[in-house]
């Protein structure tokens, strides 16, 4: 049998993880429920129109949106690595697939999960909190760039957490300081997108976000093998 290329191996890892995830839907359910709880709780007390009447609603909604995305993501993103350790399949994977392929495969899964989560959170916010997105393009750009950045910073942390004995609870503690720059910019640009800001006004924020994304991905690619082999 010919040795699979890096991308084939990465795709195989991602495909396997997606299949397992779809079978149990453990991560997806946990994340979706967190997102629903957040949106329902806010909407329940403030009413669907309560927030949008507030003059500072764009800022509040942007913060709430990213709270929902960040904490929901923290509920599920570590799952793929923790599962490997719990089921004792990590060693098998380590022996058969190059570390880089494992990383890329898991990153792909996390990106997909985050895309689903962001879609869900956005729809919930539109439905339950009456969010009007004035600049759709800017909003989508922020969400996708934010998602890629979040995945880049957290996929390697998920590996780290899986190796630690604390598991679940540690993930959020470790991730928060690292993604703080990302969250600050994402909230800022989301606020602009909701309140009708221009691309020009969001430009420097998006550039900074892109630079952060690249730096985190490079650091993760560089350090991943060491974590994975630890």
């Amino acid at each position: 049998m010919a040795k699979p290329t890096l991308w084939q191996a990465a795709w195989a890892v991602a495909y396997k993880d997606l299949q397992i995830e779809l079978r149990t839907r453990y991560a997806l359910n946990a994340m979706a429920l967190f997102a629903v709880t957040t949106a329902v709780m806010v909407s329940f007390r403030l009413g669907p129109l309560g927030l949008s009447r507030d003059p500072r609603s764009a800022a509040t909604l942007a913060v709430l949106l990213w709270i929902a995305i960040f904490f929901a993501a923290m509920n599920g993103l570590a799952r793929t690595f923790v599962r490997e350790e719990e089921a004792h399949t990590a060693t098998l994977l380590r022996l058969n697939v190059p570390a880089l392929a494992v990383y890329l495969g898991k990153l792909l899964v996390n990106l997909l999960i985050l895309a689903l989560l962001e879609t869900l959170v956005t729809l919930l916010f539109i439905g339950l909190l009456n969010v009007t997105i004035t600049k759709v393009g800017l909003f989508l750009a922020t969400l996708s760039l934010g998602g890629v950045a979040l995945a880049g910073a957290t996929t390697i942390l998920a590996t780290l957490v899986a190796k630690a004995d604390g598991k679940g609870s540690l993930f959020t503690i470790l991730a928060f300081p690292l993604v703080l720059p990302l969250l600050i910019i994402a909230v800022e640009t989301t606020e602009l997108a909701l309140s009708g800001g221009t691309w020009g006004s969001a430009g420097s924020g998006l550039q900074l976000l892109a630079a952060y994304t690249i730096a985190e991905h490079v650091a993760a690619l560089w350090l991943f093998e060491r974590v994975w082999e630890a």
Partner: protein
Amino acid sequence: MLATTFKWFTGIWLALVSLAMFLWVPAHEGLGNVGRIVIVHVPTGWLTSVAFLFSAIYSWRYLRNGRARDDALALAAAELGLIFSILATVTGSMFAKVVWGTYWNWDPRETAIAALMLIYAAYFALRTSIEDRQRQRYLGSIYALLAFVAVPFLIFVIPRVTDDTLHPNCAILNTPNCQGIQLTENGRIIGTIEDFKVELLGIEQQADLTVATVSILSNGTNYTLKPSFNRVSNKPEAIERLPETLRDVQIKRLSGEPGNQTVEIAIANTGNIGLLTEQRTLLTFFASLFGFTLLFFWLWWLRADVLDINEQLVQQGMTI
């Protein structure tokens, strides 16, 4: 012997600095007695960043060569970083309460140090959650490096959160940013002086005077001021006070033709705000910086040695 001398020297030095801070340094003209805190606050703040840097460097060295000593140094630096960040935060909060009326206000530097503390907390939480010592060192080092990649972004990101800092930056050092900025009618119209955002709204000619309309963001509020410049005497005419501050806004220089003029806007401090322009304060400040640096290195090596001995004991316990 050398270590004992070093220890005593550091102790006596810092004791002298503490005495000088209260007895020798005069009270600051603008900030009063509370200005003395700069002697302790700034060195501890700087050493927090130094500790973070050392922690990252030794983590990286540990990952490269796997020597337990390097990890002990990285861990000791992180522990000291936490202690110094607490010292800097407490002294800073005391100052903030007296001068700004609040212990905490998410000033850019407060945000940065809060993020550093969160990182240290996460780093220790990670390390204590792992029982296997080898793995503890390994994963701890990796986290320290990941955090080190993220932190520089905070430096760029944080000024976006609050447009204004209450930190008396220009009270400490007179950087070019404290001098003034050139804004042109049809060119660059936005800039920062100190940490005030300044926007040129327009320039108009009134007889011999050139009046600039500028909007200045201070303490979260936009103030519109109209400083002017006398073209005949070639001197600033109207000097405008920035509300609720001790700052005066003026046009320092004027160039270019009407329609495309460049004004140099300056925000001057009324009274002597420069903390370190006073000689005794400056001397004591450097003495304090030196003393705290000695203290830092002494504690750092001491703690790393303790961690080393601890490690050896554990290993002996395992083999027996």
